[in-house]
């Protein structure tokens, strides 16, 4: 009995570390891709957006700012992944991840809009930026969502994965 309990705790522990890793790498990969999209002029905002609330030197809008933005986003993304784990990890459909990404996008670009000075109003920012950032958030949400619900069903799911 005790053995089972400790095994359960071990699974929980490794699951949490998996969630943290997917959050970190998800933030890293997708903000790097966002950086690339920024470089290719698909979007007017790059990862440096995260530095916008702070008055920093001019470097914050150059490549250094973006790289630091990537690192910060990767770390913040861990929280996003943990949030997904507690909210939606039981949902198997991949739409949950896509929805999660879309909601995140709305939070960042509408709810948190006032804290980013210099960010143009959403109706003037241009459709390229809107579409690119929205797609990036959707893919990011899908990345987090798919991974966490897959890991969840691998660990806690009933063993009927072969039935489909």
């Amino acid at each position, binding site marked *: 009995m005790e053995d089972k309990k400790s095994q359960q705790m071990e699974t929980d522990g490794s699951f949490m570390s998996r969630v943290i890793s997917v959050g970190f*790498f998800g933030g890293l990969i997708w903000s790097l891709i966002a950086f690339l*999209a920024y470089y290719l002029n698909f979007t007017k905002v790059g990862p440096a957006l995260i530095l916008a609330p702070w008055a920093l030197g001019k470097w914050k809008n150059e490549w250094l700012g973006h790289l630091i933005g990537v690192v910060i986003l990767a770390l913040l993304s861990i929280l996003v992944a943990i949030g997904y784990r507690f909210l939606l990890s039981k949902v198997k459909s991949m739409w949950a991840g896509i929805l999660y990404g879309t909601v995140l996008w709305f939070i960042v670009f509408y709810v948190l809009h006032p804290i980013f000075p210099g960010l143009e109003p959403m109706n003037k920012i241009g459709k390229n930026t809107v579409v690119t950032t929205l797609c990036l958030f959707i893919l990011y949400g899908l990345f987090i969502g*798919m991974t966490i619900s897959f890991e969840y069903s691998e660990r806690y799911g009933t063993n009927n994965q*072969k039935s489909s």
Partner: protein
Amino acid sequence: MAQKKAKIPISKKIEENEELLKKRLGIGETFDVGVRKLLLLKTKVQLYYCNGLCDTTYIIQIMREFMLMNNQHKSPHSVKEVIHNHITHEQVELTDNMDEAVDRLLSGLILIFVDGEDEVFIVDVRSYPGRNPEEPDTEKVVRGSRDGYTENIIINTALTRRRLRDERLRNEIVQVGERSKTDICISYLKDVADPGLIKLIKKEISTISIDGIPMADKTIEEYLVKQGFNPFPMARYTERPDVAVQHLLEGHVLVMVDTSPSVLITPTTYFHHVQHAEEFRQTPLTGAFERWFRFIGILAAIMLVPLWYLYVQDPHLLPKGLEFIGPNKHGHLPIFLQLLLAEVGIHLLRLAAIHTPNALATSMGLVAAVLIGQIAISVGVFVPEVILYSSVSAIGTFVTPSVELGLANDLFRILLLLLVAIFHVPGYVIGLTLFIIFIANMKNLNTPYLWPFMPFNAKALLTIIMRVAVPMTKMRPSILHPQNPKRTSN
């Protein structure tokens, strides 16, 4: 199917058997099935064979032994026993089922009927026409073994077994096709492969109802993975026994189909299609380099041409320092049309190259390079940059180790080009997003297609990006649910 029918017994009277076989097989009408009648120990004996599928020297040996035996035994009490003892071959079976006997006869075994007995001897003297193992054309390596699978399933299992003497390797054989009765072999390591997967594959194969499978593995694949209109390859093929055994050891299940040199590896993900045996023949670092170049090529095949066309449409989007990109003069045709024409040209060339004999291939290359490339530019049909980017993406297609994946990527590139032409940047971004969502959503025998990228698995992704040194890979890929996650016992 055959098992469900009522069993047709073998008659004790040899004439009745002869009559039945003559009617069923059309001996006399069809020339490739024959019978040799003998009188041994005062008993009628008939030997049925199928021309060309059996080795005549063995049959001569057996018959010579029979004839010698005639003088040694004087009226024995059991002719059947004596004959059994004198069949000079190790693979002798007895059956009392006429259907089974006929199946065996038509696969190249010989039947020996003895008058007064309700059982028939089946002797395996098969020798199929076929080639010797050769290096497969599509998977060449600079160094390494040069043998490849052939069209003969027995040779194929032997080539596998030769590399894997494990007592736990299972080669299960089943027959598919109501008329063709093609042999299909399911190979796996009993203590490694996921039992659920094996069960699933066996179930899928046993439910196949078809008359024949001359297209062998491809047909089986379509039954196994439910392809539909999805262009992406759901199964990986290999003609190399070393690659096949590597996958067996990882916990994959192989499906071999008689008459095809390609072996089906299941389950597979997108990233199985972008790896090549050559990378494992080089040092880890150079192997990783090769792999990165290959990835760059594959990405370029998908994304480069649409991206370039995007900038041709909206030159103000070009990043700083890259302003020189884009045609200086636009030529006589719209760029979009030029790109489509180049695409059509390259695909025509590819199709032509498949069945152009080697002797003509050089001249075809010349025609393609000089006439189409050079002269199309001077005539003014193409802008030079169109040729450049189309060629790069064509090379990217050729560098894709899996032909099927290369073609699917081509298809997607053209779609993306169309989206860019209509919607510009949003078309490009949304196109790529839908592409990723689409392939992430694919499942292949319950395996996510984009694993280990989505769902993400850092360690497994590292082995794909890095070509980790073999002594470092101690674990099997977790996606296969191996019963033994560790490769060795210690």
